[in-house]
């Protein structure tokens, strides 16, 4: 039995980044196509059809669909017996640096104090890695390259607990109204309810990892997702903020129990270019792409191949 080498894993993850920035997951493509069919505003329809042209072209030609290839965040679910667990952090940094050159992706890691761009998408705490250590010897990993325009309009709101669900809805509606056309709608809204300030924001981002076709398993939360989906679309912001029926493609919510005195709501806005790729990797180097319908990650070619 062969064992997965460091080089193989770096290579597969680099291709995973390329897959993410050049090809949208099927659920996002479907949601945009459905929005196009439904849309009654002619300007909005024109924008949605050009978005479909753009993601079709980027996938066919293997080029980033958007020039802002975002900040790289990794969501890691690693078995405690996965053979490369000890060097995984440096592997993720290496794959990020390599992808900057061979996809290529735009260097987006800037020192907040000096303004200096590191040039390779790595820096202090970046790429950010979310760790989850589980039983077993597999690695399940998601890369989320999220654009700056949509991160800019994300917000944490502290709601008075007495206002309950009404207060949560008000916080979300006001945030998306203020965001207007800035996060490149139609957007996906990830919402984290409860926990604490940091937990709510983190849950909002984790909510973005769930496919748009799946509602939350808690029926009360699923109902809130559906109601907010309809209410946000009736704001009329529309694609790129020029009006229309389609402001959001989906609303995904996660929640945690909260302190009696606080009700934090983390609202994470994600542009239509909702890019992510998920790979499952076994210790003997079998790699399955979970996020996209492609049989083999090595069918994704890098620059110069």
């Amino acid at each position, binding site marked *: 039995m062969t064992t997965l080498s460091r080089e193989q894993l770096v290579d597969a993850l680099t291709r995973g980044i390329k897959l993410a920035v050049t090809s949208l997951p099927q659920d996002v493509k479907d949601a945009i196509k459905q929005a196009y069919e439904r849309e009654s505003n002619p*300007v909005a329809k024109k924008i949605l059809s050009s978005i479909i042209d753009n993601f079709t072209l980027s996938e066919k030609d293997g080029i980033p669909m958007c020039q802002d290839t975002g900040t790289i965040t990794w969501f890691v679910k690693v078995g405690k017996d996965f053979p490369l667990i000890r060097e995984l952090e440096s592997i993720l940094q290496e794959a990020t640096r390599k992808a900057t050159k061979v996809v290529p992706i735009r260097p987006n890691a800037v020192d907040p104090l000096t303004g200096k761009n590191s040039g390779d998408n790595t820096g202090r705490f970046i790429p950010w890695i979310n760790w989850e250590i589980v039983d077993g010897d597999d690695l399940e990993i998601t890369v989320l390259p999220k654009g700056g325009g949509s991160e800019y309009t994300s917000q944490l709101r502290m709601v008075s607990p007495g206002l309950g669900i009404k207060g949560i809805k008000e916080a979300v509606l006001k945030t998306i109204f203020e965001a207007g056309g800035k996060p490149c709608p139609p957007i996906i809204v990830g919402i984290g309810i409860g926990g604490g300030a940091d937990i709510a924001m983190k849950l909002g981002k984790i909510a973005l990892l769930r496919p748009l076709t799946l509602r939350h398993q808690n029926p009360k939360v699923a109902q809130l997702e559906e109601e907010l989906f309809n209410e946000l679309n009736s704001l009329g912001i529309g694609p790129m903020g020029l009006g229309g029926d389609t402001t959001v493609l989906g609303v995904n919510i996660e929640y945690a129990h909260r302190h009696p005195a606080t009700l934090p709501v983390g609202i994470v806005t994600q542009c239509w270019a909702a890019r992510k790729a998920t790979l499952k990797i076994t210790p003997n180097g079998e790699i399955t792409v979970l996020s996209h319908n492609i049989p083999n990650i090595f069918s994704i070619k890098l620059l110069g191949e």
Partner: protein
Amino acid sequence: MTEYHFKTPIKEEDIRKLHVEDVIYVSGTVITARDQAHRRAVQFHEEGKEIPVTFTGNVLYHCGPIVMKQDDSWSVVSAGPTTSTRMEYIEHKFIEYFRPRVIVGKGGMKEKTLEALSKYGAVYTIFPGGLGALAAKSIKRVVGVEWIDLGTPEALWILEVEEFGPLIVTMDTHRESIHKVIEKTTSENLNRILSKL
């Protein structure tokens, strides 16, 4: 919503015929400029210095592209728009001094720009955000680059384009702005929805 296809240099009279919601496609010369290039160009003009490119009749694109240099030639990998409001404080001067006919960006601009568009005969258009691949495909050639000392996103990229679009006119020479209208209607919608919660 009428569709137009223009070649640069674009005439002022053609621009004055346009209304909000019209869609245009442009072939010819597009020049990128964002925050720092705007500031430097306006400063040069006010000091009586020439800038190294001609915007008159051409397209000004708020964009910081992904570029690649192979051997000695540049190519554009992906080139979607950047947020235009960051240029609002200075755009009216830029229009007065350099007379671009079409401004391309995203997110819309405000009152001072709207006034300058009407006075000097230009339109502000949206190229939908994130369409970096589509934009790059319409770029046939990098004609040149100036002010590369500002860094690749901030430099002036002179691009030859073919059928660059869809560019949606959202601010016209008749002082109409889709952005103003949407701000009002979405605010009314918000209040209506909140009152029903």
